[in-house]
Structure formats: C-alpha cells, structure tokens
C-alpha cells in the first residue's frame, strides 16, 4: 500500500482515524505530565479533599486533596509506559523466536512452540505474584509480568505469518541465491510480517493498559508516590460507595484509552488484511 492510498484509507475509515487521533491525544497528555501538571501530584491538601470539578480543579480532588486532573495525566503516562515496555519485551523476544522457529524449523521450532505453550500456562497475574513475592511490589513487576505474557503471543503471530510466507516461491528463490535462514528471515520474512506485528502490538498495548490497571488495583503493580490509573482505582476502592466520582474518572480514562487503541488496531488490520482487499477480485 502506497502512502497515498494509506492516506485515503484513513479518511474513508473514520474509526481508524478516530482511534489514532484519540491515542495520540492521550499520549500527548501523558507526555506533557513529564514537564507540567496543573498541581504537583504529591501535593496533599487534606482541607481541599473530595472537591467536585471546578475551575481550580478541573476533575476535582481525591481523598487526600490531590488534583485529579494531574493524577490522571501522570497515571496515564505510567499506564502507557508499562504497557509499551511490556509490548517491547514481548515483541523483542517473541518475534525473533517466532521468526527463527519458522526459518529454521525442526527441533528449534518444536522448542519454541513448547516454550510458548508453557508460558501460556502462566497468566500475567501469576508471574506478578511470583515476582512480588521475590522482590516486593512495583511498576517494574507489572512490566516484566505483562511482558512475559506477551512473548508467546508475538512468537505465535510471527511464526504463523512467517510460515504462510515460507512456502512461497520467493523464499525458495532467495535460498537459491545463496541466502541463509537468518538472511531470509531478516530480508524476506520480517518485512512482510511487520504489519501483522504492528496490529498485534496495538492490541497488546490495550491489553497491557488493562492488565496494569488490574495489577496495580490489587497492589502488585505501581506503588505510591508514583501513580497510575489502576492505583487511583485502588485508592478509591474503600470510598467508591460514598464518592463514586473518584472511581469514575480513572475508570473512564482507561476505557477511553483502550477503546482508542482497539479502534486503531482494528482499523489497521482492516487496512492491511489482504483478504478484505481481494474480495472484489475473487468474486469476479
């Protein structure tokens, strides 16, 4: 797909456009929190607690009188960082494993498949429990736990995509031209599965945001004084019957971010999926 058709696609597919724009907006919001938030997030003003939205506090204040808007900005950053790093871990280890499994086959492939089956038996939360027992809670735990969970997913996507390419004649042609398994994987397989990986990355990013929230909510993830959307929900836990607002704000933020990422991911898949492109030709 050329750049021009890609651009046309964005404009003919509003959900992709909306998803990308919203993702970008949240990313910017999160990045801004690095240099500026309306109030410092550690700023505790017990006297100003449980305030509703106002000009001074756009999203009100929490049980410690902290500014909710600032917390949300900073929390979004944490959520994004955790989710992105875990996607990087998953893709960084999983994609090479999957590619190698497809390119070399044989015992290596068997090993990669068994390994990913094995990791599937460890949901992120179990890994987080184990790491927390070892090193105590923290955002790093969440990153590692979700990252490990991502590894087999990327490995399978990469292997699946590469396997369907591997039987194509251009791979055999490259082999005839003297290219080894590694060179074929790098030159012919990887570029052609990159779109699959990007789509999966978007999906895992949104799952990562949800997982981070869950882990922080039960105290296995981000710890004070830093904050995350999940941690805000944990803080609001005891109060949500009396002050539901404290629960609604971070929760809605999570929903919107995940929604944005999913829309973007689905849109990208539609844009890339050759089956959808081929429909008209096959019918004729």
């Amino acid at each position, binding site marked *: 797909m050329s750049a021009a058709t890609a651009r046309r696609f964005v404009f003919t597919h509003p959900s992709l456009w909306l998803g990308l724009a919203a993702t970008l907006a949240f990313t910017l919001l999160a990045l801004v929190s690095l240099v500026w938030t309306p109030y410092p997030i550690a700023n505790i003003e017990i006297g100003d607690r449980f305030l509703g939205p106002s000009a001074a506090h756009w999203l009100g204040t929490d049980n410690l009188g902290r500014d909710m808007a600032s917390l949300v900005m900073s929390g979004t950053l944490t959520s994004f960082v955790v989710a992105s790093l875990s996607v990087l871990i998953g893709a960084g280890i999983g994609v090479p494993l999957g590619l190698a499994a497809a390119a070399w086959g044989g015992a290596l492939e068997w090993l990669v498949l068994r390994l990913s089956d094995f990791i599937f038996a460890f949901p992120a939360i179990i890994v987080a429990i184990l790491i927390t027992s070892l090193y105590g809670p923290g955002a790093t735990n969440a990153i590692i736990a979700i990252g490990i969970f991502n590894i087999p997913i990327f490995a399978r996507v990469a292997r699946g995509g590469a396997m369907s390419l591997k039987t194509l*004649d251009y791979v055999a042609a490259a082999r005839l031209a*003297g290219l080894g398994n590694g060179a074929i994987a790098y030159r012919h397989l990887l570029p052609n599965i990159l779109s699959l990986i990007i789509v999966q990355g978007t999906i895992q990013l949104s799952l990562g945001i949800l997982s981070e929230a869950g882990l922080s909510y039960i105290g296995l993830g981000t710890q004070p004084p830093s904050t995350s959307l999940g941690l805000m929900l944990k803080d609001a836990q005891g109060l949500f019957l009396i002050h539901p607002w404290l629960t609604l704000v971070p929760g809605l933020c999570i929903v919107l971010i995940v929604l944005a990422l999913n829309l973007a991911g689905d849109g990208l898949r539609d844009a890339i999926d050759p089956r959808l492109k081929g429909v008209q030709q096959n019918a004729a």
Partner: protein
Amino acid sequence: MLLEVAGLTVKFGAVEALSDMSLTLERGERFGIVGESGSGKTLTALAITGLLPEGARVSGSIKIDGEPLPRSEREMARLRGKRIGMVFQEPMTALNPLMRVSDQIEEAIRINTVASAPRIEVPNLLKEVGLELRHGDRFAHQLSGGQRQRVMIAMALAGQPDILIADEPTSALDLITQRLVLDLIAEICTRRHMALLFISHDLKAVAWLCSRVAVLHRGKLVETGSVQDVLGAPTQAYTQKLVAASRFDVRPLARPPIGKTLLEVRGVSRDYKQGGPWPFGGKPLRAVDDVSLTVDAAECVAIVGPSGCGKTTLARIIVGLDRATRGEISFAGELYHGSDLPKARRRDISLVFQDPFGSFDPRLTIEQSLGEPLRLEKLDASTHVDRLIEAVEAVGLGQEMLRRYPHEFSGGQRQRLAIARALVTRPKLLVLDEPVSALDVSVRGEVLALLARLQADFGLTYLVISHDLGMVRAIADRVMVMEAGRIVEEGKPHEIFARPQHKLTQDLMAARLPEVG
C-alpha cells in the same frame, strides 16, 4: 426450452463483470462455456443458480421451463436443489470437513424429496457414481480427490435434477482421474437424460463432452455455436488463439547440437521423517526412490508424472533446495548431494517456479528481486546493472520494468520476469517446475515460445517438470515418466506416446483427450 438465459449482465459496483450473456439449453443437451480466469464463466453459473455473492447486481432474464427464477430466497433454494445439480472445482473445500459424506448426501436427499415420493437411497447414489458403501462412512479428508468429486456428483444427483452445472470439475484432479470423472459425468447425463452446463478453461474437455459451446473473454461473449464450428473453424482472433494454445504449437528453431553429459543423477533417494524431531516415530516417507538420470548439454529433458510422484522433490534436490538421503549428483564433473551444492556452482543452475504470484517478494522492486542471485557472483555496480538489463530484455521486457513492484504485472509478465531472474546469472541448466500450468491458456503459448527461443539463442539446457503431456510432447527431446518416487519409463516423446510400455504411461495415454478441431 429447459433453460434460457438472455442479456444476462452482472455488475459489482461500477464494474461490469459479465455483460449481455445469452445461452439456451435443451433437455439432455450438453453446453460448454470456455474462458480464462476472470472471463465471467463462473458468474454465469452462479447467476443461473442464484448463488452470486452479495453486492452483485443482475439484469437480463433467466428462465427455466419458460418460468423466470423465483424471487424469494427460499423458493430459489428449493428450485436449485430439485432442478439444478452443481459440481464445483475444489472438492476438498466444497465438502463439510466435520460431517461424514454419506450424511451430506443424505441431507441433500432429505431436502429435495417430498414425503410421498419414492425415496432415493444413499447406497444407490454411491453406486451410481462408482463408490463403495464404505466410502460413505468417511470424512472428506479420508477420500482421494477423485472420490471427493464423485461424492459431489452424488450430492448433485440427490434431487434428481434436469440440469447439471459442472464448474471446472476436474481442474484440481490429476490426469487419469480427470478423464474418469469426465467420463462419469458424460455417462450419468446420458443415462438420466440430464442437460449439462460444463464450465472449463480446457478446450479439449469441452470438445469431448459438449455439442455446443460459448467462448467468454473478459465478461463478453466472443463466439458461440456448435463445437465443430467454433473450435474447428474459429472466426474470432481470441478463439483462434485459445485453440492454438491448446495444441502447444511451438515452432521448431535452429538449436545448437546436443553436447556431452552436463548433469548426472546417480541413485538419489529422499526420505522424510514423520512426526516431529523424535528419534522413533512413524516410518519415513520415501518421496524419491533410487532415481538415476542424465541430462546432456543443450538438451531438453522432461519428467512427467502425477502429483505426489516425487518429481518436484527431485527438482528441488537438483537445484540445491533439498538434500538427498542417499545417492549423489554430478554437475559438470562436480559432485554434490543437493543443498551442499557449492556457492560457486549455484549460479550455473537456476529454477523457474510454478506460481508467478508467489515467486516475487511483494516488498522488493523487480530490480532488487532479480539482483538477488547476483550475490553469488561478485560483480561491480555497472556489470550488475548490465546483467539485469540483459536478462529482462532477453525475456522481451524493457529495462524500465526494473523499477516497478511485482503487483504491477500480469501473470504472464511475472512468469517472464521469473525466467529473467533465472537467466541473470547466465546459467547452464534451467530447471522449470510446471512453467506454464499456473498461467492462462492464451499466455502459455507465448511463454513456451520464449523458452524455445532462449534455448536456441543461449544454448540452454532444460529440465522440465510437468504433469502436462501435451506441453511435454511439444518441447522435450527426451521424457521420463515418474511414479511413486521411481522413474518407470524413459524415451523420445513420440515413441513413448505411440508405444507406452509401463502401466502408468499407458493409463496416462488412455486418459488423454483428443486434440481440438
């Protein structure tokens, strides 16, 4: 008049995929529709049966026994079941993989029988299509291609239809099975006095089965009439081209004399282990079994055989993509066993692939793809470019094509480019794996003529792998017949064709359909 189609037009959006198609079919008559992929021949069948994909807009009239097709989906479905039987190209995917085939036939009977009518039984249908009772208890994946197609025919007969529509029913089958299924269709149509609408790209099959024919090209009716007239004395240029292509007329060219032995294969076998990397496990599968052969310089040798006979595996070993379990190969005096072919020698042997769509990386330009084999030689930049230009010009394309991407080319052009890639290292031996079978009929002749010219110009040696006897007869100096991993017969094409010795060769010859015209 049993079936009457007039002015049938099918549109997808603004694209007119079929325009103004007309045909008539009498009871018991056999009508053929000939065309290449995208000609609209399948759309015609789908329109008649009301099975067009969503989004298709149909105009024109289709009448069965003078009645227009019903509008309600349910009535149309029941009419389809009772009046029209259908057989499709790919019998593996056309059967439900999770259901025993007898249950699928039974279902067709149940839908189309009124309670009062005498009931047709599955065993009778199985018998009629030449299957045994035990085949009915199987699932689709447990049957051979020919058996699956027989099941499809049995299902089509369940409603005791007046019309059988067969859409490329034998294209996915090997030569011998093809003939058996064609004969079965002919026999059943005669016995049941059933009309046949036979859709195919294969002129010989249409000429064999049908009395009247329509030729379609890009959604338009080119020519229609009796088979003798249209295929015997075509008036339209397109039909003439199709008829010529079906005969594989390749003009003999002045060629360099055949020289000394270039390639010698000695006792090569290839076993495949089954069931993963375990040391024990299933019995190994022997794909190639003790094959020995020689190919002389500037010769054209063909290996023919049914699918799964091991001919492609043999080719892959010779070019160095696979490794022989036993035996050895000598190329211009150098010994190797397959993938251990030394890098310095790889440039002397090239392979042209079957599928022109899979043989180029969609993300690389033609220049990058064609340049890949040149890594085997250390060339400076200007020689590199000269070689690429030389190769594309040799196959009759211009050098401006080098900057384009594969999707910008048609199937025939891609196959030319695939040949160009094989030529770029100036090889001595070209291994051609089904070089034209994935191409449209009208393009096949051009590619074969190109191959003949290249052989004459450069003194190339060809090893052709094919299942297509007509093509092999047209181009090969020597033919080897392969079955179950072994070479069972060898000789000059005209000798083998006239006096086949081995059972397989005899069956292959018997399965051939007469030439058209």
